[in-house]
């Protein structure tokens, strides 16, 4: 599974100085001889010194380099000595095209690295013990690696910059910034949003936004990808743990937490577990011990989303294909990623009618907790504090959107990231990996495998297809796809396209949506075309393709996720991130889905008994009906990309 690195292709907007330079290598299969320390070997032409060293297990320190990003070669920490060259060379930015001899830790190299670290510290206002990256900071590790025990070139005594807390999601503390520019490359290149750029020169260089406006006022989509790639504590998600603790400590409050599928696949990393170690059932116990009154599974509303969004899709198809009514155009775009929603609001507002009106699972859950759940349990919704554990920084913005108050209250009071929950668990003295297992609470506890895979790119699509196929054919998906695994929509390729043939034989319209479409005859033998994009750079490619009338414009349904890899790579997940770490988390997620099947539990959203109960008891006029529209659907704001 290879993740896509946006800089590999020609749509990259990052300046050339911040990119891997294409090397004129004669023949891709050519190899070249490299002598590095005590090793001698042949490597493929164009391999960088850093890559070759890593391959051999030789450690070269880095700071501005990141596996997901283009090469910058700016921090100069990775310098090595190349025989015959007067100056030291940045190993991350040096593609080998002729035989060379490299030494990775000569006196000259060690002195230069130490000086560079000393220089960085001379401008870094930070005290590690009061920093959220303490023990997980690349600058701190470098200082340790090079035995820094005094500040050779001084150390700032007071902060120089005001901390920017204007955004609901991302906090920027430029006092800790080491100008590695990873955030710039993340935003402009990996995500193609382009909020951040270097401004000023020399010592006055800063990472800035358009006209140095606060982050909350620019086109930031709150994806938090920059946070995940910042080596220091300069970027972080807005911390809500104090509010959540305060609610827990208040005996009048009934504090419930819903947990999304991705945090459980990632949180183990915060407790020294291998990436991809699932923590679902242990985390439930830990949450209870922290003091949450109820622990629910967001998968419940993931399943609900599938029913609502799937129904909306069927209605759109029916209107467009049968009734020639294009007021709700095709393709339908998913709406569960708030980063993506803000992206399209800024950059493609003219396409907002394509976005499904369904709220994200987080917000559907929020609306139901303060209505249905409150009523069922006789709790005053004013006393409910509804918390959402998310892999995501954009969800913090989302729950503060003014339109997210359909229950009559703020539907979700606080969004917590995986990292914040790990912090709370540590604070409570809980050793997560040692927790006994426990189940989610009812009535929302029941979930299906389909809800789980929402965490990965392609998951929403797969879940929706499982249900749509069964609705339309009246047959089990397993008849078409082995174990209901719809492999064509899985994987990590940036933009994916798939076609599914609807058989000539269709089934009866299921009871749940009988009032909406009379029969399936109009879908007989049709080809359902779907698309998937993850990372907004890829979303942009798909959008441009649609604009140009390309194959994605013929799709019926497209899944968009703002973060590379989908939610499992979200901006609230444990740091660091890399293609390998994201792949490991994805394995955990698909394993949980498969486990539902092995245990004989439901794997399709429309089989979720709690969802069915919801429609029979509360949303009595069915999917996309009046009540569900009020609580579960929303509208969008055409923001545009021009900021005043």
């Amino acid at each position, binding site marked *: 599974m290879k993740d896509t690195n946006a800089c590999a292709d020609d749509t990259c907007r990052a300046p050339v100085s911040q990119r891997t330079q294409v090397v*004129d290598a004669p023949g891709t299969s050519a190899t070249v001889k490299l002598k590095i320390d005590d090793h001698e070997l042949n490597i493929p032409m164009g391999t960088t010194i850093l890559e070759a060293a890593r391959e051999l297990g030789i450690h070269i320190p880095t700071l501005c380099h990141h596996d997901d990003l283009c090469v910058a070669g700016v921090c100069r920490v990775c310098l090595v000595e190349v025989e015959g060259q007067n100056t030291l060379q940045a190993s991350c930015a040096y593609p080998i095209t002729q035989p060379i001899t490299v030494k990775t830790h000569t006196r000259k190299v060690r002195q230069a690295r130490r000086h560079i670290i000393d220089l960085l510290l001379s401008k870094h206002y930070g005290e590690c013990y009061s920093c959220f990256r303490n023990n997980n900071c690349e600058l701190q590790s470098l200082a340790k690696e090079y035995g820094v025990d005094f500040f050779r070139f001084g150390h700032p005594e007071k902060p120089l910059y005001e901390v920017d807390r204007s955004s609901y999601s991302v906090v920027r503390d430029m006092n800790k910034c080491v100008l590695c520019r990873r955030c710039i490359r993340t935003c402009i290149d990996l995500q193609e949003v382009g909020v951040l750029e270097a401004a000023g020169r020399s010592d006055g260089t800063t990472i800035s936004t358009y006209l140095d406006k606060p982050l909350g006022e620019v086109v930031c989509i709150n994806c938090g990808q920059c946070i995940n790639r910042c080596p220091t504590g300069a970027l972080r998600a807005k911390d809500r743990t104090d509010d959540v603790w305060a609610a827990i400590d208040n005996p009048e409050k009934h504090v419930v937490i819903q947990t999304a599928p991705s945090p459980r696949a990632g949180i183990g990393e915060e407790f020294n577990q291998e990436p991809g170690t699932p923590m679902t059932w242990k985390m439930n116990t830990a949450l209870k011990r922290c003091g949450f009154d109820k622990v629910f599974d967001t998968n419940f509303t993931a399943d609900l989303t599938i029913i609502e969004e799937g129904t909306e899709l069927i209605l759109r198809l029916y209107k467009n294909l049968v009734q020639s009514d294009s007021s709700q155009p095709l393709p339908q775009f998913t709406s569960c990623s708030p980063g993506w929603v803000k992206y399209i609001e800024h950059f493609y507002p003219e396409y907002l009618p394509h976005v499904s009106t369904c709220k994200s699972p987080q917000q559907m859950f929020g609306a139901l907790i303060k209505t249905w759940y409150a009523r069922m349990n006789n709790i005053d919704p004013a006393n409910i504090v509804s918390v959402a554990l998310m892999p995501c920084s954009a969800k913090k913005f989302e729950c503060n959107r003014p339109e997210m108050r359909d229950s009559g209250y703020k539907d979700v009071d606080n969004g917590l990231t995986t990292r914040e929950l790990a912090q709370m668990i540590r604070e409570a003295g809980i050793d997560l990996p040692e927790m006994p297992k426990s189940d989610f609470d009812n009535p929302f506890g029941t979930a299906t495998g389909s809800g789980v895979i929402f965490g990965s790119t392609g998951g929403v699509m797969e879940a929706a297809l499982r249900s749509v196929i069964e609705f339309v054919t009246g047959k089990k998906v397993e008849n078409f796809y082995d174990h209901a695994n719809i492999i064509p929509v899985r994987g990590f390729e940036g933009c994916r396209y798939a076609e599914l043939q609807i058989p000539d034989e269709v089934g009866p319209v299921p009871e749940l949506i009988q009032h909406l479409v009379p029969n399936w005859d109009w879908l007989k033998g049709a080809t359902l075309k779907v698309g998937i994009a993850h990372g907004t750079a890829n979303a942009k490619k798909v959008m441009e393709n649609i604009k140009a009338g390309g194959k994605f414009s013929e799709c019926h349904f497209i899944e968009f996720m703002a973060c590379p890899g989908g939610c499992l790579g979200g901006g609230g997940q444990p740091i660091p991130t890399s293609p390998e770490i994201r792949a490991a988390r994805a394995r955990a997620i698909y394993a949980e889905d498969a486990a539902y099947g092995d245990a004989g539990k439901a794997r399709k959203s429309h089989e979720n008994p709690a969802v069915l109960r919801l429609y029979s008891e509360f949303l009595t006029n069915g999917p996309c009906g009046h009540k569900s529209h009020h609580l579960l659907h929303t509208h969008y704001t055409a923001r545009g990309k021009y900021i005043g």
Partner: protein
Amino acid sequence: MTIRNNMTLSSVEKNKGLAAAMKMEPAGVIGIIRGSGMKGRGGAGFPTGAKWHFAASAKGERKFVVCNADEGEPGTFKDRVLMDEWPDLIFEGMTIAGYAIGAQEGILYLRGEYTYIRKALEECLAKRREENLLGNHVLGNSNFSFDIHIHMGCGAYVCGEETALIESLEGYRGEARNRPPFPVNTGLNGMPTIVNNVETFAWTSAILVNGADWFKAIGTSKSTGPKMLSISGDVECPGVYEFPMGTTVNDVLDAAGCDCAKAVIIGGASGHCLPPAEFSRAICYEDISTGGAVIVFGPDRDMLDVAESFLEFFADESCGQCTPCRIGNVKLLEGVRMLKCGKCSTNCLRDLCALGETMQCASKCGLGQSSPNAFLSIVRHFKNEILGRACTAAES
């Protein structure tokens, strides 16, 4: 600034070199430039013929010739005089280069502060187009079309560095690129590009007229040809001079009228500072190389003032991209200021010198690599002057 001695370029007939080139194969033109042994006049001293050869053999749909007229090094002004006096020879040289490497387009990157020359240059270009010295089928050669336009710089010194210049041409912040690959393979818009100094192009035209052997006969074996120098500071006749490569500092001082120099900085702010004991050294690539700046300091000059003013320049002009240069220059400047008030201990000075060495080998581009030069050589050659102050402070 005035021209102070006889200039070979005055006697070079315009467009004769271009006409001669049009009668040759491109490879033949490169052969002549290689044969002349000319090295780039911008400072780095890369053999011009070799650079053109690389660009000629590189694959690319389009190729570019860039004339580096960003002349930002403090103490350098010979390119300005060249553009005032012999714009034709410069554009002619660019055209010859275009023919040699197979380029269709030339760009003259003009220093922002030189805007006043632009009009004359544009007029010269217009005239050359009229005379078919530029444009479609230059001088009737059906295989060669070439035009030149002028792109204005905006006052950043670093944009004189060739890869930062290319970034600037592409519309980005002027910041040096990673190398390899080099512009001859991956330059402007990813295409093979040569970047040469103004003077390099002017001599190109002269070589095509007078021949490679003529050029080689001037100068030393490793540094051939004449070199323009911008001489300034405490001399009687500052201005632009032409000397054969290999001329000693003493001879240069004699010509400019100075017999009491305390120090000479060759190569401008990023150059090396020489004390009188070293004035017998030769100005050429194998001894002290320079892009053309010679700054002379009389007996009353305070060398710490000199170091301070140069470091102020670099602390302002660093593009801010890489750590050693971005913060290093500021730290050196702080150090010089501490030295000035006698507050810098010898330990601290040793750290600063070591930092200077790190900057030389660790910075990403030539700016950071050469910015500590003046400071380090002043510390080396004028230690007493500098440490004297450190001691007084310690005693008091």
